[in-house]
């Protein structure tokens, strides 16, 4: 309940405040968001597996987002930013998909 509430508060805050993102950070924001989503679904999966841990979740959430953004930033510097962000999105996409499938199996037993 609290997590869902927190998410809603974040969305409302974003809509109300409408913070502007520095241009230099803009390309890495979507990647960071996808990485954070991956951490969230991983956390939900761990919760259903009965092994969830707050500290691990916070650490994985922050580091996932940062690492994904930094990877794409490095890729940009080396001229392979587009390809690297594709690679990151593919890997994270597969993981999110697998976790959602596992969550579905947990919830619906099917």
């Amino acid at each position, binding site marked *: *309940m*609290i*997590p869902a509430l*927190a*998410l*809603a*508060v*974040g*969305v*409302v*805050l*974003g*809509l109300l405040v*409408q*913070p502007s*993102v520095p241009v230099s950070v*803009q390309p890495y*924001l*979507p990647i*960071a*968001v996808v990485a*954070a*989503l991956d*951490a*969230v679904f*991983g956390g939900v*999966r*761990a919760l259903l*597996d*009965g*092994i*969830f*841990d*707050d*500290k*691990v*979740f*916070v*650490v*994985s*959430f*922050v580091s996932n*987002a940062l690492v994904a953004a930094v990877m794409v930033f490095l890729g940009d510097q080396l001229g392979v930013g587009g390809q690297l962000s594709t690679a990151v999105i593919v*890997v994270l996409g*597969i*993981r999110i998909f*697998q*976790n959602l499938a*596992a969550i579905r*199996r*947990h919830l619906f037993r099917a």
Partner: protein
Amino acid sequence: MADMEARGSRGAGERPVGSTGGLDSPFFLDVTTITVDPAYLQAAAARAQSGTARSGGGRTLMLPLVLLGLLLTIAARQTRLAAPAATRARAALIADARERTALSDRLQARVESLRAEADGVRNKALLTSSAGQLLAERLDRLELVVGSVAVRGPGVEITLDDAPEVEGQEDLTGDGTVRDRDLQEVVNALWSAGAEAIAINGLRLSTLTAIREAGEAILVDYRPVSPPYTVAAVGDPDSVEPAFAESQVAAAFHTLRELYGVGFDVRRRERLVLPPAITRLRHATVPTASARASG
């Protein structure tokens, strides 16, 4: 380690969820099977060992989830803002191009009005003497031939068009396409049929105008024209039209129309208005002293 893997293996296929992957595990198998951070398993194992309860309630989760909601909203908003920006840039460029075209049209109109004014002044000056009067008449005739004045009058209008594309069948041979040579032949046939002034798609032909092809486009006086091509010729329709109809060119186009579906249509017109051609006179000049010294 063994019990840790046993806990994590539920619902994750043949490989344990928390496996850290060894040299024997292909990378892509890891990607698709290790979907939960192994740290969860390690923390769970540590807790089991020390016997402590799970840490905290939901409060630690607040911050990351508020952050996630915030980031999601920002990213979505950014994406939405970025798309119209590209559209705006495009719209600005289009508006810019339109404005320049309008400016060029206005300047062209001004050139024409100034030319008419100059002609009027010149004619007035010439008409003061009988020699000047003869000269003015000669000028009028020459201007008509050269194409530097607008003309109007009856004539014939010939429409040429590429053959319609057959569905799913590309015209590789180009047999049904109107080429620069076709336009040249029609124009020449019209001149010899007695046409006094000719324009293609509103571009007046002067004595210096070239009709040629560049790539796929036909250029008339270096300006591109696109099909259908309308060749308007001012001249006595009663003599021009039959003379053109009897020409070999007309016969050839009738054949092309029958064989390939090339558009070819000849019509009499009671009133045609042809704009003046943009003529740039090329003539010899005496080089200036400095040019002679350097040359």
